[in-house]
């Protein structure tokens, strides 16, 4: 009998300890999660990050005229690097941008410059870029340039791009697939990936005041 009486408080005590331990574990995980989320949010959205992504570029626009980042000051820029011989991933990214601008409405869209910069200037001449971007909607700029100009822009945006030879003698381009959001001062404020939905892009751009 005494054994049973002793056993009871002992077992409920250890249960309590286990529950406390579990509770603390959950709290710790939550705290860790929050910490990581805050860190990531800071990295991806803080103005300080503008030091590391984006910067001056000097390229050729879809009409064959020189164009620089300064020509876009006062407008938000959505910058995406890709190439026109990319039938699978790039059209998805460009149509997400076009759809997001549609949903934001004409007033907001007028403040935003969507910019498609080629990583394949050898094939994507200004004329190719003009026809390509026009198909995705009005207002999307298609920038090309000399190999050195493109390489410099890639460096500014920390874009990885490399020729990927195909067995048939042709090539595709491996490239970073990221939409960079730059504020009207030309500073990096956010980025979208292939996993970002149009709704999430719209919400983020509204939250930023674009």
């Amino acid at each position, binding site marked *: 009998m005494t054994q049973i009486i002793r056993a009871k408080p002992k077992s409920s005590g250890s249960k309590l300890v286990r529950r406390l331990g579990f509770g603390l574990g959950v709290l710790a995980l939550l705290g860790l999660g929050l910490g990581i989320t805050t860190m990531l949010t800071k990295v991806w959205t803080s103005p300080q990050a503008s030091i590391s992504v984006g910067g001056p570029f000097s390229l050729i626009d879809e009409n064959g005229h020189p164009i620089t980042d300064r020509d876009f000051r006062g407008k938000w820029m959505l910058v995406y690097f890709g190439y026109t011989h990319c039938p699978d991933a790039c*059209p998805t990214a460009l149509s997400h941008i076009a759809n997001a601008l549609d949903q934001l409405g004409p007033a907001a869209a007028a403040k935003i410059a969507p910019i498609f910069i080629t990583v394949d200037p050898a094939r994507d001449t200004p004329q190719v870029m003009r026809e390509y971007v026009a198909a995705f909607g009005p207002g999307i700029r298609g920038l090309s340039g000399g190999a050195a100009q493109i390489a410099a822009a890639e460096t500014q945006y920390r874009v990885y791009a490399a020729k990927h030879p195909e067995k048939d003698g042709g090539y595709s381009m491996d490239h970073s*697939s990221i939409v960079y959001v730059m504020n009207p001062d030309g500073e990096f404020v956010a980025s979208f990936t292939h996993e970002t939905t149009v709704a999430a892009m719209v919400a983020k751009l509204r939250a930023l005041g674009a």
Partner: protein
Amino acid sequence: MKKLVLALLCVALAAPAWAASVTVTGAFARATAPGADTGAVYLGLQSDLPDTLTGVASGVASGAMLHQTTMQGMVMSMDMLDHIDLPAGQEVTLAPGGRHIMLEGLKQPLVKGSHIPLHLTFAHAAPMDILVPVAGLAATAPNE
């Protein structure tokens, strides 16, 4: 669509009874911008016996190949595939962001609402000619 059904029917009737038969579902191509040199076709394939998709061709392009888009971190890359395995009775899907049929050297832009011919060859099943509807520029389904 009628033409597609007819084409599939013809293939089904022409194939010997003992041969593997492959069913194509939900095929579509993406429209292309004027001047674009490449296009993509997506589809679902199901074979009743183990088979392999070994080749693709289309009259609207000088070349066609099996391709796979992969994302490594934020870097997108495309690789050519020699073939695509079709396990018996299992639907194999080629969808945006993954495997696709890449058309190269387009002789004309792919216009939404039109159809393009596609020739598929298999290790066992008889070759198949189908008509693929062209959907929107960034379509993820035939009706987009």
